[in-house]
């Protein structure tokens, strides 16, 4: 393993931070079969290594426990997210869904809570009596759509006509969407509107006019996308732009080769996870923003459209021993495994070895706190790299074969089956501009 980072001739703040990060991460990349008995026993006791081998395990049960606390009362430290309560709901519910752990009895609570955040004028705010905002709207709708297959009343919680009118009100002549009334315009606005409009069958030509043009104008010389024209390329915005363009069927309007190169270069050669921008540090959440973006690009290259997930039918056979997971068929995560243009095995290794908190939950990097946001996006990235474009639908898995989680749809980031269900439910609803604005 190369350790060139320490050979910098000139030290800068940036190089010091990178070296520190590599040093922080390196102890987690130990060879398991080189440990002594008591060290190995400890790891097995906490559940990180499987009982009869040397494979790293996803701590499913502990993560589920941690996520359920997120749906309950939160401690004082979370006051800074008071305007983002739908996000917390979505991060936790989606993560639980990937782990196949969303109980039916959560549905009524999800519906009643999120309904109270919806405004008559359309869209959802971060909490009751809060202004409708693109981000909580996106999160609320996704949360409702992922529980809806189990309780279809959730589909009707979304006030479609009002939502459409609100989307239109956020639209600007440049093609970008504001995040909220009188708010900022950037590519997050584009994605949050287009993704939800697509899922709820509200993509009219009127809504989409000029949207692709604005999005493409955010591509930089490096190949990635910034939040607004003139901004530097950044993982979060790159995902928003790529997913929005793919949903609109217009990915080829941008320089796809440059984009691909930029995303691929964001995978850290030592850590294995992704960084958000050049010369910045690895962070578990980019497992989805960057990994997912690449999955969308690869899917498009394979001729798939926005709604095609690139995941072949996954029917988990329930293991009678109660585990609930089909452990029989997985593909080993060798360097060339999988159909995505990044090292899927190394990404999974980063998530499992460095991203997991031993008491449940996942994080940015070992020196950071676990939180629901990082749990959601680490797991989403894990899912993408296991399933999207995997040959014959056989997931590519690093570590224990039971690490397979449910497949997420790279464009929308809820489970593939939830996307299909939403498509089915909304396909016959009115999707005509003149009708909707009545």
């Amino acid at each position, binding site marked *: 393993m190369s350790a060139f980072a320490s050979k910098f001739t000139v030290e800068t703040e940036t190089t010091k931070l990178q070296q520190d990060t590599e040093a922080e991460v390196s102890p987690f990349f130990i060879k398991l079969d080189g440990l002594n008995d008591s060290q190995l026993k400890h790891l097995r006791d906490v559940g990180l290594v499987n009982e009869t081998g040397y494979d790293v395990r996803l701590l499913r049960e502990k993560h589920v426990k941690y996520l359920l606390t997120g749906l309950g009362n939160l401690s004082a430290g979370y006051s800074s997210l008071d305007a983002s309560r739908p996000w917390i709901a979505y991060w936790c519910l989606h993560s639980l869904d990937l782990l196949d752990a969303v109980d039916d009895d959560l549905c009524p609570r999800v519906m009643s809570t999120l309904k109270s955040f919806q405004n008559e004028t359309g869209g959802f705010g971060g909490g009751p009596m809060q*202004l409708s905002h693109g981000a909580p709207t996106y999160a609320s709708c996704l949360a409702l759509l992922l529980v809806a297959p189990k309780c279809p009343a959730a589909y009707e919680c979304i006030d479609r006509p009002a939502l459409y009118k609100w989307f239109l009100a956020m639209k600007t002549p440049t093609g970008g969407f504001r995040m909220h009334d009188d708010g900022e315009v950037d590519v997050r606005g584009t994605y949050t509107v287009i993704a939800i409009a697509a899922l709820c069958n509200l993509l009219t030509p009127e809504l989409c006019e000029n949207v692709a043009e604005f999005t493409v104008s955010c591509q930089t010389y490096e190949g990635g996308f910034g939040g607004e024209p003139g901004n*530097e390329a950044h993982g979060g915005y790159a995902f928003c732009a790529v997913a929005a363009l793919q949903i609109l069927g217009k990915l080829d309007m941008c320089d796809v080769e440059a984009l691909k190169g930029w995303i691929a270069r964001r995978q850290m050669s030592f850590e294995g996870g992704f960084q958000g921008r050049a010369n910045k540090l690895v962070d578990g959440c980019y497992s989805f923003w960057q990994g997912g973006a690449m999955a969308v690009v690869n899917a498009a290259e394979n001729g798939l459209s926005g709604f095609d997930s690139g995941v072949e039918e996954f029917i988990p056979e329930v293991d009678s021993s109660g585990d609930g997971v089909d452990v029989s068929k997985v593909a080993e995560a060798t360097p060339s495994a999988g159909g995505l243009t990044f090292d899927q095995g190394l990404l999974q290794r980063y998530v499992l070895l460095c991203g997991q908190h031993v008491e449940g939950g996942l994080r940015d990097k070992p*020196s950071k706190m676990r939180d629901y946001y990082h749990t959601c996006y680490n797991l989403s990235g894990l899912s993408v790299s296991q399933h999207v474009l995997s040959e014959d639908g056989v997931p590519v898995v690093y570590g224990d074969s039971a690490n397979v989680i449910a497949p997420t749809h790279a464009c929308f980031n809820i489970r593939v089956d939830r996307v299909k269900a939403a498509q089915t439910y909304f396909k016959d609803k009115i999707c005509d501009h003149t009708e909707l604005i009545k």
Partner: protein
Amino acid sequence: MHGRNRIEYEAKVSNADFTKALTKKVINYTALVKACNARKAKKVSDNETLKLTGTVLGINPDYATLWNYRREMIKSDSSPGAVGTWTTESEITNKCLQKNPKSYPSWFHRKWSFLHFVEDSNVQEEIELTTNFLKLDERNFHCWNYRRFLISQSLSVSSLPTDLRALLCSSGFAPQLSSPPPSPPPSSSPEILPLLQSELNFTTHLISSNFSNYSAYHYRSHLLPLILHLQTLGQSPAETYSAKLSQTKEELKLLQSAIFTEPSDQSSWWYYRHLLNSSSPPPSNSITPEKKIYAELLHSTTSPLRELISLEMSEGFTPGSKWALNILHYILETLDALIGMNLGDDADEILDMLILSDEDKKLRYLEIKNEKVRKKTEVLFVFQERGGGGEVFLEVRRGRGEGPKDKYVSWFRIKEGKASRLKFKSWDKENGVRMFETGALQVDAEGAGWISGEGLMELVKRKKTDVERDVVNECLRVWD
């Protein structure tokens, strides 16, 4: 959440007094939010309510709804100092940004306030503010964004002619999108070029103290074309292109010191590549004067690069040499494509060095090597044993026609999937007989035959396109 150090936070939280104080804070916070909402419902608008929202925002800067409420109050009464002033708004946003320098609504509100109180706000002071925030985090894109907005204000972008305005907007120098109060007409025409150049100098200063400041490079990637555009207004395409190359030369000089000081930092290399790319001449079928001067520029960069490579490689293969080798290969390929400068062997040597120095990507370099050969490989003739016996004779050309012909054109015999090269001796053109060491190939109007010690093998002519790629690869493999 992002940025909180685990060890520190876990230590804090285990302290009972800390959690007690925090809980108290939250009870207080919830009460304040309730109070704000009650007033909002009644559309109350006064300084007391302004203060109240300020207290909540100081605790939770991301509460967008309350920022909106503040704006509503300010807009509802435009008599000076009625509710909210530049002073109050700059103070509250300052406080919130200290707490969370990445808070979208806080930056947005400052932008809005700057415009609303345009007579009181001072653009220079605000630019100074961004310089200071950048000292704390030079990659904060919200801050860069705000700075670009301020520059657009100084340039009075909204009152510029359409195409210039569009150009500036696409580089992020955009005026506020919502309908602000109209900006006062400029008293003198704005000095655009000096301002952009001073921004360029600002990034030079940042880069010289930290070569890895990618955001600064990014900003330059927008500033340089804008500056060039303004400097070459009204000039002919030829003059403009020549000016572009001069600018690139200057930029390369700056880059040179970054690269030579720290060759393992990839950011400078990608910017280098972008510079060369963006200066490429307009495409054409002939070798234009533009192509010539561009080729000169490219060529002039190769010796410093070779110098760097030998310097780096004196200590064995380093990542620094890898980047330099990659760019050098790219330059040589470009020169080849541009003016037909055949540097085939040279470029291949570089690929060989890359294979050794960048093991992780070995297969990719081999692929590039093979790709090049494959692109130029052509099957010229192919004959097959009559009766479908399977033996095949083909003539293959690889690469360009330079040097002794047998280096790039040769005959092969394929027997049971294995290729062997036929050593050419002579060609009797008149009689259509090619003599090889192991036999003779006769071709005439009726057909063809292979005459050797084994006797005569009758051959039929086949189509070039019938030859499978694998067969050609096999020939290339055994060629040398």
